């Protein structure tokens, strides 16, 4: 019974545990923590089972209420979606393990239970967005994700977090508003909400109502790039990711931004066939925006003094990489994008978590005051350094692999200019990450009045993520072997 209902259960498990946490109320903090953790373990197991199932059967479909697609809602899990579900659930589990001993020190005691519930709801919405095959259902989950993500930013309680939360909420509502208008347009000219049926009806609709489809494509592009923080529309991101609690920043940067890219991939490949995209200037647009994003994100990150803000600007640059792969649109480049979704999720999570540890242990947020911290607190600083080196793209680590595939894809498309962009940006990454690494390990040893100890959960998470960085760097054939058929599947329609 369970294997048959896996697609629904993967959404229901975190959702129901969030409901139960909210049912008991804010006083049961320990219960909330254990429930969240248990739910995430179950969720991760289910997601990995689904991943296995997609390698065997290809695509899994699930019809809610037994109603066939054009009438009911369908979950559609292909290889790409299964890959993303596995990333979301495992990162979610690791971050929750990290939160166990750290969260209570960062936010007020009486909102911790609510925090766990909101966290699980955010995870649910990410899974739902990725798995759903129905446009309006995707919109509902988009709204859940914007509300819960804004709440996870603002829950930090200080005035900056509140302001960032308001900005984030308003801009992402603008984004979902334009996505909804686009959905209305698409529904109007095709008569369906299910992606598969829209794709079938679209050529006929395009012959009759071309402008409508162009308009909806533009609206989708604006809406999703606002939410995914592609360069000129990234203004909300540094504030939000810089002022949120550590665990929220990790999840927001590592996962939430990427789910909108998954939606974008769905629109690009599942609805609008690839030869259809070439009629519109969407590809050059993406290339220009992502190039600017990569360069400007890195340059702005160099100018930051606050470590979390620096990491947030680095996310802007990395989102540029992922969109670059979609703009180049060759199989290798898309593999590079998908790999970067995985690798950036791991790298940014470890960077934010270790930065949060360092801030908590030393009280230092400024980049240039981190002198010698690595000698006092080797574990978090080593994790940070590993993440930073992977981010720069040092060969045996995982960041290199995705950049390699992006470069290969650009060469396939005869656009060596973008290889240059990737190289320049790696250099810029080195410019702001390496000084921290060098200074913290080779600088003068500072004197702290007391040496604090990290909780065991935090140490476990940092180690696990560090191992993941090395493993996905050395054995890159593992994800690439999974993704190659996935991308073939995408290009086949």
């Amino acid at each position: 019974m369970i294997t048959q209902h896996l697609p629904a259960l993967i959404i229901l498990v975190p959702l129901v545990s969030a409901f139960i946490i909210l049912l008991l109320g804010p006083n049961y903090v320990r219960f909330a923590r254990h429930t969240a953790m248990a739910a995430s373990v179950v969720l991760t197991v289910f997601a990995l089972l689904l991943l296995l199932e997609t390698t065997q059967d290809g695509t899994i479909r699930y019809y809610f209420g037994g109603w066939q697609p054009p009438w009911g809602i369908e979950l559609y899990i292909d290889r790409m979606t299964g890959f993303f579900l596995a990333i979301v659930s495992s990162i979610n589990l690791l971050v929750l393990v990290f939160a166990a001993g750290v969260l209570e020190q960062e936010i007020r005691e009486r909102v911790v239970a609510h925090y766990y519930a909101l966290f699980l709801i955010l995870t649910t919405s990410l899974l739902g967005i990725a798995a759903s095959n129905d446009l309006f259902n995707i919109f509902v989950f988009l709204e859940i994700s914007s509300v819960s993500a804004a709440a996870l930013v603002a829950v930090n309680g200080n005035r900056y977090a509140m302001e960032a939360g308001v900005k984030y909420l308003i801009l992402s509502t603008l984004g979902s508003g334009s996505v909804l208008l686009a959905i209305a347009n698409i529904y109007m000219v095709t008569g369906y909400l299910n992606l598969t049926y829209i794709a079938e009806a679209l050529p006929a609709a395009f012959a009759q109502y071309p402008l409508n489809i162009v308009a909806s494509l533009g609206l989708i592009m604006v809406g999703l790039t606002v939410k995914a923080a592609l360069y000129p529309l990234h203004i909300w991101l540094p504030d939000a990711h810089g002022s949120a609690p550590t665990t929220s920043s990790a999840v927001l940067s590592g996962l939430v931004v990427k789910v909108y890219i998954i939606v974008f991939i769905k629109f690009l490949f599942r609805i609008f066939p690839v030869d259809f995209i070439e009629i519109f200037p969407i590809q050059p647009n993406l290339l220009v925006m992502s190039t600017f994003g990569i360069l400007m994100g890195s340059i702005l990150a160099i100018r930051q003094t606050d470590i979390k803000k620096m990491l947030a600007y680095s996310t802007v640059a990395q989102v540029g990489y992922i969109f670059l792969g979609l703009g180049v649109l060759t199989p290798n480049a898309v593999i590079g994008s998908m790999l970067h979704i995985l690798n950036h999720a791991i790298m940014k999570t470890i960077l934010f978590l270790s930065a949060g540890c360092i801030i908590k242990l030393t009280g230092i947020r400024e980049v240039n005051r981190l002198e010698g911290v690595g000698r006092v607190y080797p574990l978090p600083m080593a994790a940070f350094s590993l993440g930073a080196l992977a981010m720069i793209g040092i060969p045996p680590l995982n960041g290199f692999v995705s950049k390699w595939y992006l470069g290969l894809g650009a060469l396939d498309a005869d656009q060596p200019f973008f290889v240059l962009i990737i190289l320049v940006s790696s250099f810029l990454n080195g410019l702001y990450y390496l000084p921290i690494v060098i200074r913290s390990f080779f600088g003068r040893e500072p004197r702290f009045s007391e040496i604090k100890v990290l909780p065991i959960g935090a140490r476990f998470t940092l180690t696990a993520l560090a191992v993941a960085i090395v493993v996905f760097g050395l054995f890159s054939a593992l994800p690439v072997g999974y993704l190659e058929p996935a991308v073939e599947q995408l290009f086949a329609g």
Partner: protein
Amino acid sequence: MRDLIVRVIARFIIPFIQVYGLYIVLYGHVSPGGGFAGGTVMASSLILYVMAFGARSEKRRLPEWVARSIESAGAVFFVAIGLVSLFQGTTFLANQAAGFPMGIPGRVFSAGAIFLLTFGIGMKVFSTMITLFTHLIEEEEKEGTG
């Protein structure tokens, strides 16, 4: 706001609003309406009560933990109704296929899960709306760690 006329009229009109809201909820599958609209109408009666008598006396009528329980329990109830169909061998959130009694269309007690779901949604929306309003209008609560 503590006006005698407002209080008298509120006391007189609130039961009617509540009955009307309940009617909209219960007849949601027969006539226009449903859980969301009806729940909001029911909540608006309590909002009127808050405006006339103050949030504190409203808290006595509907304590916070009751409201919170109804909210979450409504959502859990929704999922539970959906899970019934898993054990009946169909997919999540099935109605007829899961063996809910259909009844005669047009009656109040008909349409199986739809009636139950609408009722659950109505209760949930009712308590959510009233909680949203009281939380927004109220000054900082002083309740220790609770």
